């Protein structure tokens, strides 16, 4: 999945299922969109669904430093790269 495809998918999920309004790639997820810890766990489940495989516990813990949509995209690309190298 290219970065553009990834971005399109994630923004679509955030708008349709998390009710984000006009999301920007560098918006602070919590301050600008009220995204909380429950949302983070739910989003990880959506990402697993999108990727088609389970994310490891260690990888999930790394997601806790995510603050922006760009962070989400970087995070998924890191996971994809690790998965492809296995």
């Amino acid at each position: 999945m290219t970065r553009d495809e990834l971005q399109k998918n994630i923004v679509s999920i955030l708008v349709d299922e998390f009710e984000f309004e006009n999301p920007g790639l560098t918006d602070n997820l919590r301050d600008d969109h009220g995204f909380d810890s429950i949302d983070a766990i739910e989003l990880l489940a959506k990402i697993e669904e999108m990727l088609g495989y389970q994310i490891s516990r260690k990888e999930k813990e790394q997601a806790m430093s995510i603050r922006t949509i760009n962070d989400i995209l970087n995070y998924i690309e890191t996971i994809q790269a690790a998965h492809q190298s296995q």
Partner: protein
Amino acid sequence: MFTIVKRKIMQRRVVITACSAITPIGYGKTDIVESLRQGKSGVKPLRDDGLLTERIHSKVFGTVDYPIDYGFARKDTKTMGPVAYYACKVAGDVLAESGLDPEFIRSGRLGVSFSSTHGSPTIQRNIYKTFFSEDKSKFSSIGAVDYLKSMVHTTAVNITRMFGITGRVVASSTACTTSSQSIGFAYEMVKFGMQDAMIAGGADEYDTTTVAVFDNLLACSVDYNDTPECTPRPFDVNRDGLVVGEGGAAVLLEEYEHARARGATILAEVVGFACNNNGGDLILPNLDGITATLRLALADAELQPADVDFISAHATATKMGDVIESQAIAEVYGNKPWVAGLKSYMGHTMGTCGAIELILSLYMMEQGFLAPTLNLENIDERCAMLRHVREITETKIKTTAIQNFAFGGVNTCLLVTDGRE
């Protein structure tokens, strides 16, 4: 039998300053009162759930089948199962009706006493489906918030979350006495000075599991599957069991001086509450236990039996439950107070029933009438010693008793007086 203990502790008056109910016979005072006056039943055919309905003998349910405009944002609904929708809607209604200052709502002096029988069976059912799925990849489909949606105190804490309430949380889940306990314990919180106000009540969602349980216990109505409006039939000789129902109801309990100081409308005063246990069988109704509850409530209120004008009986329309309750009422009150079984209009709304029956009673006290027990055509001679409400009766009611009993041998009685001054 029982001992009345008097303690020298802070005792404050507790009043009801707002109420709201979503019931099978309507949402809000106008609809509910109209249904009561017209004898309209909220019992409908049991919906097919693709799982249990086919095997359940009872095919009726007290159903909320009208649309409700919730208007909740996703930030709130992400932790809510259907039961919490009912709970938050009625809680929001009482806060709006009360006119309480937003600062007070967040002050820690307002608490929540609210619960349900099971949490959310709809969410629990989805979790079980995943557990029993042979597709192992389905495990991750259990949502992170499924526990928050399904836990027993999901209603109470979704209310605190939605409205930013920071006071005490009480989530008493005791089957059919859930909301009557919620209100009783909230009354005691305010009376004894632990909180200045409490949102109290209960909710239960559409659930065939509960129907299946009572069905297996031979306690559900099965003879009126083709004429749902003819059941349940409290005190009637042809009653054949209870009908499970759904709904949500909340009252705002407030310390009297606090309510007066802010010019709140006082709907009623809670003057007494009692709660005990039969101390034995967890299913069968117990005359000694129930009789003791009724007397304890009168003692708490410092009232005499003759002071009570109307009794909202638990009256589920089971064979033995109605007889034992009739005997208890007769022993404590004789045949002076009017008695009605309000479940005849909507079935047994489980954890919600005490709160709904209180609110229906408040509406009738305010409007000066009593609705009859629906479907009471031929009184069972073992229940005939009571003064049953048989038709719409225009009368002034000063004091009402709300009686509820639950599996587990839990009994409750709330006593309220008309609070309008």
